[in-house]
């Protein structure tokens, strides 16, 4: 980073108002420098000025904006310099103020905007890619070469053979956007500005595009300015990050510093994962292994109402012969909150259009609350039951006022005027658009439009709500708010189907994920199951969220039992780890006391066992004590351990050999251990014994933890899941284990406990 390539000096910008609601947006005394070969990120909440900044740099503002003649000074001031050229400057000519400067500086400066529909200007992919190059006057061979390179960079090289035959309507939104990006990459700009270019892309597509740009940067002389919300992308690729708020720069720094600054959490998504782990290496050292071993995250239970949606062998072919759905089978129960994910072009949107009753010429069976939607009278009533929120809000919004947009559906379902007014106000409040009630939706920001689109449907309180990409183009805070709205609706009884690429939100909010590929379902299950399936993830080009990636490493090494799916679950775990840890000592005297108690109970309940089997080594002491009390001499032992020799929890129980003949057992077998902790050891031993005998096996332990997979038939007392029971006779081993894991609290306890005698737990 050396010489500046972009300089904004004392910029003032205020949008002109030719009618309607006034824009409060104001940029004043704005200064920013971008250096050669830098990869600069811009982030901030919706409406903070990110797109305005991009267009200022690109020269579209103020040159493309109609300003009252001679009064440019009321709207613009300062200077924008790009690559040594004055792009925009305020000049005074006599009594009038005008804007001078070069304006848009293509091809040296490229700008890729959010909406691919308005940027795709021609009628074939080839023409789209070659447009800018023809304007540059390049020879044909050079154009062809650059087109090939550019397609490779955005991961669309397989389109090359058909490039002159591809019509824009044959491309998905994501493909269109990638083609637009490729068309700029082919022009080899010196400064490339990308305004949320990947918001319509799936996660793989996103990464592919950003990596392509990153590679381009490594190859040649290019400065990149990227507007993005995703902190993982920003952290991975950019050098400096600018945080905007209401037209002002809040912070400029390295992304890791920005994202770990809790003071900025109001304005941007400060990654909670980043604040938890500075880096994800040596995680084993950073967490308490024992706590990790026992911790089970608590998750929302999915309701299991009757089927709301039943789909059998659904097939759909578009009029041009392309097959979008190839036999989809799915049942969604009432009250579920499921995520429907898949790459661009997998059939998700077609599927939702069939379910919402819009597409009609499909094959198969589709029932909504038991009614077959192929029947006309059922289909006509679908809008009252199924709400559909479009992927592109521009396609959904068609009224001229925000409140009228929400009222439209309510009028159609026959609601009274007073009720409509109340419902509209309530819904506007819910989505944070109360102050835009009378605004023309055409002039809302993309994020506001998306909220309006959602509001116009949720106002109708549909029983099934299908939401297509609700969080695209939203900052993370707003994305969470939208998901919370959906969750609230779900709690109120709506069945929610979310189509999304955002794996973080899926992991956090949805208990069931359905994955589509090429018109078929290839997965239907919990997020945990999906994230553990590497092959499926690869096949579907899905990237698990960071929280999952970190906990996956721990699960694979046996430290954790479950994946933690979100930052929230991680925080809950850490809270568990830090706040709920307790240690109790069980002395030998106490063991004798409990052995007597247990023996009395055993005899009372089951009578005398034929044989006692104990698990080494923890069960040995209590088993001998019990055998003395109840007078059973036949004892067998089995080695079983859930820990490695290093004291780290393993992924499975290691069993020693057990080749005894149990045919003589007439009554029952008593299986004894000191504590039912995870229950894995007990279960493994039980399974082994039951292969050798059909006689009953009763389990007896001193202590029992509720999360144990096996609940003993007889036990002396219950301890909390997070309590470490230290047995006196295992003092040395326990101390060694604590030392190995750097468990200082445990060591402190040992010091205190074994400095004094006596049972602390009765």
């Amino acid at each position, binding site marked *: 980073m050396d010489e500046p390539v972009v300089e904004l000096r004392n910029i003032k910008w205020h949008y002109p108002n030719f009618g309607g609601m006034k824009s409060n947006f104001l940029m004043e005394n704005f200064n920013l420098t971008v250096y050669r070969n830098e990869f600069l990120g811009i982030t901030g909440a919706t409406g903070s000025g990110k797109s305005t900044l991009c267009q200022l740099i690109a020269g579209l503002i103020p040159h493309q904006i109609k300003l009252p003649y001679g009064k440019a000074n009321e709207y613009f001031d300062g200077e924008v310099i790009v690559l040594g050229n004055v792009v925009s400057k305020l000049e005074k000519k006599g009594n009038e103020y005008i804007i001078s400067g070069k304006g848009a500086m293509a091809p040296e400066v490229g700008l890729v*905007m959010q909406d691919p529909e*308005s940027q795709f200007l021609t009628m074939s992919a080839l023409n789209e890619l070659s447009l800018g190059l*023809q304007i540059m006057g*390049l020879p044909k061979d050079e154009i062809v070469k650059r087109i090939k390179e550019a397609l490779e960079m955005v991961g669309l090289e397989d389109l090359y053979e058909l490039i002159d035959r591809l019509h824009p309507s044959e491309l998905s939104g994501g493909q269109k956007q990638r083609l637009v990006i490729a068309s700029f990459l082919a022009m080899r700009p010196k400064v490339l500005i990308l305004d949320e270019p990947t918001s319509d892309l799936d996660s793989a597509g996103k990464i592919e595009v950003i990596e392509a740009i990153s590679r381009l940067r490594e190859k040649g002389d290019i400065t990149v300015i990227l507007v993005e919300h995703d902190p993982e992308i920003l952290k991975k690729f950019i050098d400096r990050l600018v945080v905007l708020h209401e037209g002002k720069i809040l912070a400029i720094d390295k992304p890791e510093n920005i994202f770990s600054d809790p003071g900025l959490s109001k304005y941007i998504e400060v990654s909670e994962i980043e604040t938890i782990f500075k880096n994800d290496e040596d995680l084993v050292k950073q967490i308490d292994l024992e706590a990790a071993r026992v911790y089970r995250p608590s998750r929302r239970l999915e309701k299991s109402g009757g089927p709301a949606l039943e789909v059998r062998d659904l097939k759909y072919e578009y009029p041009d012969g392309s097959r979008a759905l190839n036999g989809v089978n799915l049942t969604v129960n009432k009250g579920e909150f499921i995520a429907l994910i898949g790459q661009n072009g997998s059939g998700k949107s077609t599927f939702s259009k069939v379910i919402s009753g819009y597409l009609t010429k499909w094959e198969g069976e589709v029932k909504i609350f038991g009614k077959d939607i192929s029947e006309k009278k059922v289909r006509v009533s679908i809008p009252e039951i199924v709400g559909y929120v479009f992927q592109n809000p521009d396609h959904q919004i068609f009224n001229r006022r925000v409140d009228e947009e929400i009222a439209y559906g309510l009028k159609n379902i026959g609601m009274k005027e007073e009720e409509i007014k109340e419902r509209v106000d309530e819904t506007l409040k819910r989505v944070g658009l109360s102050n835009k009630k009378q605004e023309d939706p*055409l002039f809302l920001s993309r994020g506001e439009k998306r909220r309006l689109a959602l509001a116009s449907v949720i106002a109708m309180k549909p029983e099934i709500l299908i939401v297509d990409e609700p969080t695209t183009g939203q900052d993370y805070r707003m994305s969470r708010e939208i998901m919370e709205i959906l969750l609230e609706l779900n709690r109120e009884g709506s069945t929610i189907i979310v189509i999304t690429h955002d794996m973080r939100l899926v992991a956090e909010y949805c208990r069931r994920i359905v994955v589509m590929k090429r018109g078929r379902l290839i997965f239907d299950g919990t997020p945990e199951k999906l994230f553990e399936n590497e092959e499926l993830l690869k096949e579907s080009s899905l990237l698990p969220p960071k929280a999952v990636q970190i906990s996956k490493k721990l699960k694979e090494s046996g430290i954790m039992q479950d994946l933690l799916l979100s930052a929230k679950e991680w925080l809950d775990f850490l809270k568990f780890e830090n706040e709920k840890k307790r240690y109790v000592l069980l002395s030998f005297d106490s063991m004798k006391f409990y052995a007597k108690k247990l023996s009395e109970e055993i005899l009372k309940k089951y009578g005398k066992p034929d044989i006692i089997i104990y698990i080494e080594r923890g069960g040995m002491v209590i088993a001998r004590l019990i055998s003395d009390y109840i007078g059973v001499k036949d004892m067998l032992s089995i080695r079983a351990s859930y820990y490695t020799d290093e004291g780290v929890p393993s992924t499975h129980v290691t069993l020693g050999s057990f080749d005894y003949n149990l045919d003589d057992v007439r009554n029952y077998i008593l299986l004894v251990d000191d504590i039912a902790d995870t229950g894995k050891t007990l279960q493994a031993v039980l399974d082994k014994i039951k292969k050798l005998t059909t006689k009953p096996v009763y389990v007896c332990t001193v202590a029992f933890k509720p999360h144990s997979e096996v609940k003993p038939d007889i036990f002396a007392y219950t301890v909390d899941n997070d309590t470490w029971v230290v047995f006196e006779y295992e003092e040395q081993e326990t101390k060694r284990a604590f030392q190995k894991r750097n468990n200082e609290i445990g060591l402190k306890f040992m010091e205190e406990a074994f400095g004094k005698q006596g049972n602390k737990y009765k």
Partner: protein
Amino acid sequence: MAERKNREGQKKYLKTILFSAKADSLFVNLHPFTKFVLFFLLSIAVILAMTKSHPDLVFSLIVFLVVLAFLLESGTLKYVIKSYLSLLFVAFIVFLIWWLIFNQIGNSILFSFHIGNYYFRITKESLYVGVAKVFGYAAMAFLTLLILMTTRDVDIVDALNQLKVPFKQTFFISLIFRSLNIMEEDLESIRHAQFARGGKASKKNPLSRIKEFLALSIPLTALMIKRAVEMGSALEARGFSKSKKLSEPVVKKRIRTADYVALILSAFALYTSITMNVTNVLGGQIWTSLL
């Protein structure tokens, strides 16, 4: 992306101005310039056939059948039948009725009635004229559909480029096509959005139709105005207004033998239409007497 390839991985169908057509069909592969000239010559030929004192029904029929054959060959006849047949059929009937009502010529009465002083009759001659007009118009209407369904918008723009029409003008044509394409998709989306929120198809009375039309056209126009602003920005971002000397387009369709054959045949058709009445040559009088 729509899976429109066959097993060999070839793109079997091409998206054209209206619907799609088989990529390897004869008419699809004609140069747009050829199609334009063919359209021009044949329309003049058919107009002449229709406007003669004794309209040339057989000529119009031949053109009509040839066009139908090409529609079939290009795989587009199914679209015509699905989407346009009922509309066109109504148009043809209306057209015929107007000619029967307002062109009551001849003496060989086939059917007649009177209401008060108004006397209506259908004669062999008026029926012949009406049918000839309808087939002439049908030939042109189907020819237009054939061209729209077998020509890609991109090919028209490329053809204009080859004629050295300035870039900004040819690109303008391309932008019109792109706007039509976007409007088609936006219209569909607006319809869907209205359906999804209970906007039911209204009754058939004119006032409801007008309301329905407004409900669709206002948001569509508003959206298109906004798109114009965005397209303007997107064009500027590519340096459009500063373009000086542009390079040649990458793909140029060439005029081949098939084009020359098509041009010669259409010129011949025009010549035939100018110089003779095919119906009469083939014993036209006998035909009318058969009616």
